[in-house]
């Protein structure tokens, strides 16, 4: 129980003109018990030297809700106490002197239903540039069921995606076409055809493939769909390619998406940089048009990677599940891009589970009920190869798209061979796991055995056997093992 007392000034003194500390204005309420319908945000607050931590945390609550720098009498025309965000708990961050976890509750009426743009304009709108803070990071959010239910959620969802693709029981396999810039439409389609025929389920445009002088978007779409249909006929299996419809305007994006639809594509792709409103528009378009919607998280590391400042990717993942995309890049752990194993596990749970229990060691600070919102398929992409299949399956599970770009196209005997190597490695590992084998430890053995009847896998294992990316993670969870009182 919290032994601290509210120091909020009440009555008419509260509205005397002038400047008053945020913690006295009603933004610090240590005895407040969040309602089930409140949105809760957890910030990591690093005040400037000499700034009282409680005041800094109260200021974050104030500046992300109703406050301005001075008292205004017009507050009295509103139910001001309801609309004030309330910081109700402040904990020092373990092993990080000078930083504090601030728990802040927001009344549901502060937010427009079903709008990520509105939610984020409040929560991360002004407050990140607030001068009394050295740094500020949004670590996690608890989204109440009443609010979750105002969003469409993933247009397709993991289960229906699998039903449409007729692929069950194993991760899906993909590859990003490389080189990502410079190929003509005709050459680009060649890579798609080879990779899909060789055994991949999906190929993918990269984030910056839109419509450039070397390849305009119509050329790409036409040649890619020729490749998809050829590969489908050659294998009897459903195939797809993420056609990136990211463009300068909403009208351009709709035009490209409509063309993809007309050509029979089962999936289109957008980049995170198009913005939250555009993402929600495309999610609704995708639901209307039976289209899977892939999101490439282009740009996220500018604000997700540093522990002290920005927005954690787990929050972005939550927003994107609400916004309604079907695929999201969520880390590989073993590949070339940032990814602490426990933190990444937290992201994957947020994408795939119907209920996330609080799990501090995974960076998940709140129970989160998704209220049957569709599940979002995580995508693991960047510096992974067939030789890591046992680790990937162990760390990331079954409902994931494993994207081997270099690990397919860089195969010494060509793209089809690279694709086949990955598919055989994957199927062999699933077979062994289901048979009850200790596949994590016996992984290399299982792969070697499968390679006896699959030369492309043998060659892939030889080329990439020692490739790993072991660097210190910059974003591991700092958590307080037991709730503690502070300041």
């Amino acid at each position, binding site marked *: 129980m919290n032994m601290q007392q509210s120091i909020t000034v009440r009555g008419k003194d509260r509205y005397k003109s002038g400047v008053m500390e945020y913690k006295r204005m009603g933004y610090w309420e240590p005895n407040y018990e969040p309602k089930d319908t409140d949105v809760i945000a957890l910030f990591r607050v690093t005040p400037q030297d000499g700034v009282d931590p409680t005041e800094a945390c109260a200021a974050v609550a104030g500046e992300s809700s109703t406050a301005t720098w001075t008292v205004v009498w017009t507050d009295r025309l509103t139910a001001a106490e309801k609309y004030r965000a309330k910081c109700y708990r402040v904990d020092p961050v373990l092993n990080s002197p000078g930083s504090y976890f601030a728990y802040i509750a927001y009344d549901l009426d502060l937010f427009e239903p079903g709008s990520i743009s509105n939610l984020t304009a409040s929560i991360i709108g002004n407050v990140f540039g607030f001068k009394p803070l050295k740094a500020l990071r949004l670590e996690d959010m608890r989204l109440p069921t009443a609010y979750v239910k105002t969003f469409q959620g993933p247009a397709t969802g993991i*289960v229906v995606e*699998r*039903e449409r693709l*007729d692929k*069950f*029981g*194993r991760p899906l396999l993909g590859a990003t076409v490389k080189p990502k810039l410079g190929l003509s439409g005709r050459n680009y389609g060649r890579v798609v055809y080879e990779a899909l025929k060789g*055994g991949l389920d999906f190929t993918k445009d990269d984030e910056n493939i839109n419509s450039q002088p070397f390849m305009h978007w119509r050329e790409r779409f*036409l040649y890619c*769909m*020729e490749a998809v*249909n*050829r590969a*489908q*006929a*050659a*294998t*009897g*299996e*459903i195939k797809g390619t993420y056609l990136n419809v990211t463009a300068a305007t909403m009208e351009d994006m709709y035009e490209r998406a409509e063309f993809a639809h*007309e*050509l*029979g594509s089962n999936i289109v792709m957008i980049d995170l940089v198009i913005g939250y409103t555009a993402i929600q528009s495309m999610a609704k378009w995708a639901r209307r048009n039976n289209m899977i919607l892939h999101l490439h998280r282009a740009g996220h590391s500018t604000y997700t990677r540093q522990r002290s400042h920005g927005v954690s990717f787990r929050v972005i993942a939550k927003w994107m599940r609400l916004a309604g995309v079907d695929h999201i890049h969520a880390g590989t752990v073993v590949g070339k891009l940032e990814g602490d194993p426990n933190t990444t596990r937290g992201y994957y749970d947020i994408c795939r589970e*119907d209920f996330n229990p609080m799990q501090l060691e995974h960076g998940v600070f709140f129970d989160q009920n998704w209220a*049957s919102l569709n*599940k979002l398929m995580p995508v693991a992409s960047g510096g992974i190869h067939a030789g890591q299949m046992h680790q990937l399956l162990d760390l990331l599970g079954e409902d994931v798209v494993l994207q081997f770009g270099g690990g397919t196209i860089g195969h010494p005997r060509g793209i089809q061979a690279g694709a*086949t190597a990955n*598919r*055989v490695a994957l*199927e*062999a590992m*699933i*077979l062994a796991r*289901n*048979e*009850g084998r200790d596949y994590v430890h016996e992984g290399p053995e299982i792969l070697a055995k*499968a390679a006896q*009847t*699959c030369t492309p896998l043998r060659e892939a294992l030889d080329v990439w056997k020692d490739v790993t990316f072991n660097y210190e993670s910059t974003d591991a969870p700092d958590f307080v093992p037991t709730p503690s009182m502070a300041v």
Partner: protein
Amino acid sequence: MRVTQGCFSFLPDLTDEQIAAQVQYCLDKGWAVNIEFTDDPHPRNTYWDMWGLPMFDLRDAAGIMKELADCRRVYGDRYIRISGFDSSHGWESVRLSFIVNRPREEPGFRLDRQEAAGRNLHYSTHAYAAGRPEGERYSDH
């Protein structure tokens, strides 16, 4: 060609012992195991014919292996697949699906293209075998 639908089509055909292990995996998860067959392998042919109802209450793979043997005796010239169905909330669909029997010859698919305006093409996939009536598609006459 080799139709690569299902979870294990890139591996050599599974032995009965391997199939039984996968079936047991499904049963241990509490999934209902289903046997289905078809002679139309079109990638979007969703509804293969069911060999009886999904086996909701079976707990031992041996029972399913006996059903599979019976199914093969009748439809051994066709595709047969085994699937595990999970009825739990939030999934309520197939969890694992793999081919356990194939025709001796798999003639594959023809891809038809219908040219349309603006260099657009409309594609259509036909299983060569499906040109013949059901039941005669993979027999030798």
